[in-house]
């Protein structure tokens, strides 16, 4: 009998050192940058080093660009922070896009209707509550049906995104400014009501503060609170959770309300803290990218910061090289995609190891 051993076989690693895990990810990032460079060179026929210099320049080249990069990073981070508890619970919330939009919509509505009536601080506090409430409702609806009838949450939340988008276009019809433009334009551009105030001359400091507070809060909630532990147990096994006396349905609904509320807040940060307008592209795909960020970071907030920073850095850089070399702006999506493929793929080499066939002496 001739049993042929396969050339490579894989086995699960029992443990992996932090050094190894970091090394694998670094190699993956470097490889992805090489592949991106190859792609860029084929399309632009430019020296790849020059192109990467362009990316760095675009992301952090000037003070303003660097702050835009920071602003975009913290929004992405906030959405990922919001999604983390849902995913930890194995609830596939693909609806962050819609939850962000609803939060943004609530913010824009209050800016428009209450902008002239209230002082800015009061208005911002009201918007803060309302945007979280809007996201909370949008997250609660699929969770309710998941808990009640075990309805597939992946597709439910996905469809909710498009319902939210239609609600936004519906509102734009009434809010458009100037008439006929089909856009809302900059809201309260003269009075700056409902805008985040600048602190120490910088208009994005408040964004960073809010996001950092919520990131830290979420870290403690997930690691040290009883509710955070319940989320982890439900995620591992619903049967175990039930056996331990955890009310699974309540945990699902409660966690999704928290998740949706934070995503709604991200809508406020985008509308009041950055764009000062509302459109269907206010969320701009961040709801989807944040899923990948949260999942790849294994819900560790520190890794979430790193991954969102890397992705936003490359996106902002790609926008710059697009103008510099006359490409169109969608190049940034391709680059993001390539980096993600490598980062996702490298997880395998952290969890498994390959064993090559040993040379055997002929018997």
């Amino acid at each position, binding site marked *: 009998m001739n049993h042929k051993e396969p050339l490579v076989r894989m086995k699960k690693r029992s443990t992996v050192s932090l050094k190894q895990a970091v090394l694998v990810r670094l190699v993956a990032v470097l490889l992805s940058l090489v592949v991106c460079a190859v792609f860029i060179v084929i399309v632009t026929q430019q020296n790849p080093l020059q192109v990467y210099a362009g990316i760095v320049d675009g992301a952090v080249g000037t003070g303003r660009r660097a702050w835009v990069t920071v602003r975009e990073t913290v929004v992405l981070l906030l959405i990922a922070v919001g999604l983390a508890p849902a995913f930890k619970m194995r609830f596939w919330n693909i609806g962050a896009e819609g939850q962000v939009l609803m939060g943004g919509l609530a913010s824009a509505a209050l800016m428009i209707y209450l902008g002239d009536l209230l002082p800015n601080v009061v208005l911002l506090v009201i918007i803060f509550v309302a945007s979280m409430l809007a996201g909370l409702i949008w997250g609660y609806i699929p969770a309710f049906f998941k808990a009640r009838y075990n309805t*597939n949450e992946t597709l439910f939340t996905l469809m909710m995104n498009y319902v939210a988008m239609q609600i936004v276009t519906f509102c734009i019809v009434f809010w458009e400014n100037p008439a006929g433009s089909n856009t809302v334009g900059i809201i309260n551009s003269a009075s700056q009501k409902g805008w985040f105030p600048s602190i120490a001359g910088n208009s994005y400091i408040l964004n960073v503060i809010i996001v950092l507070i919520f990131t830290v809060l979420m870290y403690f909630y997930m690691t040290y609170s009883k509710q955070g532990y319940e989320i982890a147990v439900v995620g591992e096994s619903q049967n175990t959770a039930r056996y331990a006396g955890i009310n699974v349905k309540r945990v699902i609904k409660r966690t999704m309300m928290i998740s949706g509320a934070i995503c709604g807040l991200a809508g406020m940060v985008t509308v009041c803290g950055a764009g000062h307008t509302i459109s269907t592209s206010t969320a701009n795909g961040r709801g989807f*990218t944040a899923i990948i960020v949260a999942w790849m970071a294994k819900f560790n907030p520190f890794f979430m910061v790193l991954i969102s920073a890397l992705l936003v850095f490359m996106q902002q850089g790609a926008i710059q090289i697009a103008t510099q070399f006359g490409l169109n702006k969608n190049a940034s999506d391709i680059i993001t995609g390539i980096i993600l493929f490598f980062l996702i*793929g490298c997880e395998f080499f952290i969890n498994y190891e390959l064993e090559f066939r040993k040379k055997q002496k002929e018997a």
Partner: protein
Amino acid sequence: MNLILTFIQKAIGQGIAILFGASGEILIEKSGNLNLGIPGIMYMGGVSGLMGAFFYENSVENPNGFVGLLIAFAMALVVSALGGLIYAFLTISLRANQNVVGLALTTFGTGFGNFFGGSLSKLAGGVGQISVKTTGEAFRTTIPVLSEIPVIGPLLFSYGFLTYLSIILAFAITWFLTKTRKGLNLRAVGESPATADAAGINVTRYKYSATIIGAAIAGLGGLYYVMDYLGGTWIENGFGDRGWLAIALVIMALWNARSAIWGSILFGALYILYIYVPGLSRAMQEVFKMFPYLVTIIVLVFTSRRNKPENQPPASLGTSYFREER
């Protein structure tokens, strides 16, 4: 009467792209892979078909529509199959999380489509300037003689060949999954890969084949949209959310490609209903555009409420298989 006829015609025209996507996704999901990358793959299929036709028509003196059609068709199949291969390698060989890979693939594919579509427009001299008329005409050629019959002609025989192909494929997939040994094996893999493995079925090979072939079929939906529906041009983000609707349709059709045919026409009708309901204000039109998604949500809730065993997704859907794991 005429209005109803055009409405049905347009609804079918809208539905076919979604039907291709749903048929492909059904094949993939039956192998236990939930591929959320379908929207991206459909963009890739569409733009590559367009590129093939564009470069062919610009390099020959007198382009032949049929040759252009073959080139576009082959390009769409190959490139979307490659998209499927990326997904298959990451989820099957590297056992990455399927949802995450799918979403990344959608980001990548949508960017791929808009990037090359936009670059092609620029090459052709501006937005909407791409013209692959000859090939577009070939894709839109209807069945001669039969399409002249009043009422029945426009209703049944006035479409390009991709429309008929999509319906044939939907029937073929249902037949394959229920009547052939390979189809039954594939379903076994999707229900319980460990059992299938023990029965001597090559799980990896089945998963790979289903994912790649399914992606190629879904890519034809993008090709249909670009060549037949638009007549051979590119609109940035024009394909929109049809890819997600295709994934929703899989659930609505309860993983049966044959029922997806009716579902796709229903989706198509809901998609364009706002144009045909008289006297809608602009705001109300936006409300009508919500219907495809609301209907999907309602169907989702009702099927989960009824909870019939034969209406369930493949049992192993969304999980990767590792032989040594218990």
